[in-house]
Every structure is written in structure tokens, then in C-alpha cells.
């Protein structure tokens, strides 16, 4: 029987050969991934160094080096779009998480109708984003929207409220819709986490004199650190990628006030047919997301760093 020695180098190839059957098992999945994910990523990065004006066929694209990146990073629109993206991502994530946590805490106890309520709260998460976007678009409509009509009818305002056609309120209105759509994802994750809090800890804290809020703060929250981290990271990534709601509701307008990275990329690629620049933009977004993905993987597999408290 072989015993692995301290020196690993000579054993690597032997180990691979010994496990070649394992590699065969994962080969198909790996192959599909390379084809569907790996190759497009490679091609996008490759394309980002070229200029592809609409008047030229793709085969005649011109090599411009890092010109596209410079152009994006120094364009005046980039700063605005980046700020929009930060606002969109941060606020959506924060409120979706807070609402989800609140809902999970409320649902963590037994009461009549609990199952029904949980089902209802899941509805926004499961309905199609396109349907949700259109429904909300009409709710918000500046001339004939339901919300505006209710506001006028109840005397709060004398003309329908302008949500989407106003440069100041378009992004916040979209954030509301986004939070509405995804908070129950956070709810489900946190609910699962809450079920794992040991009952005895709560009893011990009760005996020690901790009230409901104190038990939440000292026992529940620290215990949920892992789940919280994962949930927040997943929300961040989803929000950075979130295209359907902004695009269908305002298409980045009015006047670019709700333009975020992903809608800007779409517009560049498919409306203005600038594949080269859009690819460079995509690569920038990709780098940001991969950094977050790195932290996500670390959180999943790393040790919990206990916080003082």
C-alpha cells in the first residue's frame, strides 16, 4: 500500500493517471462548460481589443489594443452609469435583504395561515420578470397608472405621480420593483438559516434574562453570519446582472437616469452594433463580478471568523 510522502511533485502525474476514470466522468460537463461558457468568454475578451463599426463586416474588424477600455473609462457617461449602477446594486441588495430577513423572522414562528402567507410572499420571486416589469410599468404610468389614479382620487396629489418619466425618481422606482421581486429569495435563505439556530441557546439566553431583541442580536445574528454572507453576495451578483426590469421599464431613460452597466452594454452591442466596445465594457463588468465570486467561494468554504460580541 502506498503512503503519500511529503514531496508531492513526483506524485501529481501518478495521481492523475490513477484517477483517470474520475476525469472521464466529469469530461462531458467540463466540455459543455468550455463550449458554452469558456469559449464565449474568450471570444468576448478577444473582441474587446477590436473596433467593429456597423459599416464593416466582422471579418474586417480593426485592432485597436486597449483603446476601447480607455474610451469607456474616460467617457463622461461612464461615471454617471457607474454611479447609477452602485446605487441600484447597493440599495436593491440592502432592502431586499432587510425585508427578506424581516419576513423570515416573522415566519419563523407557528401561527395560523403561516404556510399560506409564505406561499403568497414567494409569488413575486417566481413570476416572470417580464410580466412583473410590464405590470409595474402600468402601475407607475405617469398618465394612467393605478398608483397615480389612487393618489389623485384620495386627494393626496392633484395630478398623477410621475415615477418613471422623471430623471430623479426613475431609478428609485425601479429599485422598488427590484426589491419587491427578489426579497423572498432572501427570505427563504434566511428562513433556512433560522431553522438551524439551536433551541437550547435561545433557552439559555432566556434564562439569562435576554429579551426578544437581545436574543436576536446576540444569538440569531451571529449564528446567521454564514447564511447572511452568502445571501448578500448572491443578491449583489444578481443585482449587478439584473437586466429585465430596468430594460423593459425605462430602457435606461429618461435621459440616461436609469442606465446601469448592463443596459448600457446591451445598448452598445445590440442597438448601436459596437461589439468591440460592448465587449470591453462586458469585460470590465466581468472582472468586478469575478472578484465578488471569489469572496463568495471563500465565504462558502472558508472558516468562520467569529466577531466579538
Amino acid at each position: 500500500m502506498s503512503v503519500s510522502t511529503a514531496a508531492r511533485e513526483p506524485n501529481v502525474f501518478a495521481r492523475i493517471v490513477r484517477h483517470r476514470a474520475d476525469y472521464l466522468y466529469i469530461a462531458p460537463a467540463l466540455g459543455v462548460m468550455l463550449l458554452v461558457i469558456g469559449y464565449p468568454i474568450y471570444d468576448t475578451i478577444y473582441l474587446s481589443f477590436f473596433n467593429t463599426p456597423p459599416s464593416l463586416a466582422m471579418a474586417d474588424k480593426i485592432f485597436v489594443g486597449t483603446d476601447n477600455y480607455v474610451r469607456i473609462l474616460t467617457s463622461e457617461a461612464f461615471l454617471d452609469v457607474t454611479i447609477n449602477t452602485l446605487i441600484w446594486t447597493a440599495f436593491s441588495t440592502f432592502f431586499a435583504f432587510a425585508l427578506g430577513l424581516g419576513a423570515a423572522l416573522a415566519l419563523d414562528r407557528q401561527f395560523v395561515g403561516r404556510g399560506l402567507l409564505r406561499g403568497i410572499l414567494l409569488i413575486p420571486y417566481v413570476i416572470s420578470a417580464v410580466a412583473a416589469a410590464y405590470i409595474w410599468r402600468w402601475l407607475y404610468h405617469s398618465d394612467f397608472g393605478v398608483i397615480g389614479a389612487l393618489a389623485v382620487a384620495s386627494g393626496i396629489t392633484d395630478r398623477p405621480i410621475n415615477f418613471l418619466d422623471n430623471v430623479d425618481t426613475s431609478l428609485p422606482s425601479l429599485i422598488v420593483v427590484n426589491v419587491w421581486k427578489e426579497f423572498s429569495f432572501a427570505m427563504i435563505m434566511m428562513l433556512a438559516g433560522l431553522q438551524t439556530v439551536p433551541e437550547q441557546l435561545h433557552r439559555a439566553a432566556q434564562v439569562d434574562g435576554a429579551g426578544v431583541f437581545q436574543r436576536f442580536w446576540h444569538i440569531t445574528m451571529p449564528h446567521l453570519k454564514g447564511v447572511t454572507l452568502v445571501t448578500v453576495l448572491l443578491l449583489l451578483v444578481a443585482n449587478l446582472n439584473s437586466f429585465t426590469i430596468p430594460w423593459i421599464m425605462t430602457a435606461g431613460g429618461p435621459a440616461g437616469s436609469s442606465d446601469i452597466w448592463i443596459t448600457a452594454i446591451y445598448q452598445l452591442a445590440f442597438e448601436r452594433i459596437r461589439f468591440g466596445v460592448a465587449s470591453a465594457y462586458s469585460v470590465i463588468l466581468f472582472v468586478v463580478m469575478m472578484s465578488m465570486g471569489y469572496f463568495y467561494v471563500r465565504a462558502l468554504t472558508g472558516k468562520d471568523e467569529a466577531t466579538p460580541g
Partner: protein
Amino acid sequence: MAEVRLVDIVKNYGAFTAVDHVSLTIADGEFVALVGPSGCGKTTSLNLVAGLIEQTAGDIFIGDRRVNGLDPKDRDIAMVFQNYALYPNKTVFKNLAFPLKMRKLPRADIDRKVRAAAKVLDIEHLLERRPRELSGGQQQRVALGRALVRDPRAFLMDEPLSNLDAKLRGQMRAELKRFHQDLHATVIYVTHDQLEAVTMADRMAVMNGGKLQQYDTPARVFSNPVNIFVAGFVGSPAMNLLYGLMEGANRVGRDGWAVELSAENAGRAARATGREVVLGARHSTIALHREHVAGAVPGRVYTVEPTGDVTFVHVRVAQTIVVVSVAPSVMLAIDDPVWLGFDQNKLHLFDGTTGDAL
């Protein structure tokens, strides 16, 4: 410290009665064990005393205060849990300090009390560690410390040793007993292990099916069990029980075995409701003979368990197995014929119909 009184406590969960009219008094400074199989209501009773759940009927007194309806934190009790329930993200110091922090004591007081408790339990050197860095025994001491800082009137312990391996359990048992004696603490200790109860408690309350079966010192519970359940529960190996029928006034037996009763025992047997009588004999009260002796019951060796100090011989008598302890030098083989002699003075008799002792 204070006495704790349960007066006719009932706890129902819907149609299920978890605690059925239990009355107990634990004297000030007394160590009482609540013992019984799972589901007998001992943990529920403990939680009722703690105030974690509310009783359906009955009163609970801690000291001379009636504590019905009071929150746990207002009852002046402290609890030690099976899994210790130490706060995993806090240091040992912060664990000990937590109950005091909840009481909003000033920093200096908290510091003083924590260090005092730590000293008593000899965990001063562990104050900056976290629970996961401690051994099982150390964790238990921290749990005790957390209970200690509260200056409680009574300590409630819910199977605190169940998670430990056998060797550590023995050690901790001794430490807990020492802890109790040093502090003159009132302790209510729940366990399913009758050995723990017997070795540690001043008195033990045996429970089964929500009812209190017997509440007495371990010695008396051992020597005078009030019914078949208690007889079979306390003592290890368990008391041998032979189910038989009265054959005449002074003979008990059943398919293949029979025992003559002494006049006194016959008199007790006569008090049985019916003909069914159960004989109880502890392993140390039965004599094992290699050849037939008058009055002895024949049987065959089923298996032999040498333990070093003593050898337990399992003897098949008719349909039952009777366990007898013999000196380790006695050599026996399986299926050897043996004869068992019962000591009439140490024989227990139980009513076969009601289960009560006769």
C-alpha cells in the same frame, strides 16, 4: 439558596398529559435528581420550574415566593443545559458576563463577579478563549460558571453529562458533586441515567409517564422500590423479576420453576389482588450452586460476563434470564446446569396485577 416546591403540577399539551399531578419539595441545599426514561416528564418538569414553559395547573414556589407566570430571568434560577448552550461567538469571559450584562450591572461589578466565578471553577486561564477551543470538561465548567455568576436560588441541570464519554462522565460527576457540596447549592438535576442519580443525589424522584413514582433517598429507592417499574429501573444490572402465580399459600412458580416462600413472605404475597405475584431479587442476593440444593431453582448458564471485580452469570430459568453475580474465580461454561438459591430476607414481592410492592 432556597427550597423549591412543586405543588400538584399538571402540564397538558392538548390531550397529552406530560406532567400528571406531580408534587415535590426540594429542600434548601439539597441535590435532587429527576430520573426516568425518555418522555417521562422530567425535562418538562424542569422547564416548568425554570419558567420556560407555563404549567396548566398547580403552583411552583422558589423560596417562599410563588413564581407562577414569572419570566425565567425573574425567578432567580440558573440553568445548565445538555449541550452547555455556550454562546459560540463570545469569549468565555463574555459568556460568563452575559447574564449580568442583561441585568445591566455596572462594568466593574460584572468584572468582579465573573472573575470570582471563574476562580471557583478554576477556569481563570480560559477567560479569553472561545467555546470551540475548549474541551468538554472545560465547557461544562464554563456552563456552570455562567450559572454561578447569577447567584441563583437554585441550579437546574438538564442532563449536563449526557454528551460526555464514559471516562469524562465519571470525572465530571465527581466534580459536580463537589461543586454542590462546596456551595451548599440547591440543585435539581435531570437525567435518564439512574447511576448518575444514585451516585450524586441526596434524594431522587423517579418518574414514568408523567407521574412521580417514588421520591426518596437513593438507598431507600434501591432497597425499597415501591413498584415493579422502580425496581426494574434502579440498579445495574437491573433487579431480576420473575413473574409467577401463587400455587397454594406459600409457593410461587410458573412453567418449570417454583420457589417456596418463608412465612413472612407468604403473608405479604397473600395481600396480592390476584394470583399473580412477581418475585424480585437483586443479583447479589442470589446464591449460585453447582449441584442441586433443596429449595433452589434449576437453570442453565446462558452467558457469562466477567467484569474483573465480579462475574455476572446469566442463567436461563424457564423463560426468563436471571442475572447472578459471583466471584471472578468461579469458572462456568455455557449450558452448565446450575441451581439458584434465593435469600428470603432480601426477596422483593410485587403484586402481579397492580405492580405495587407487597
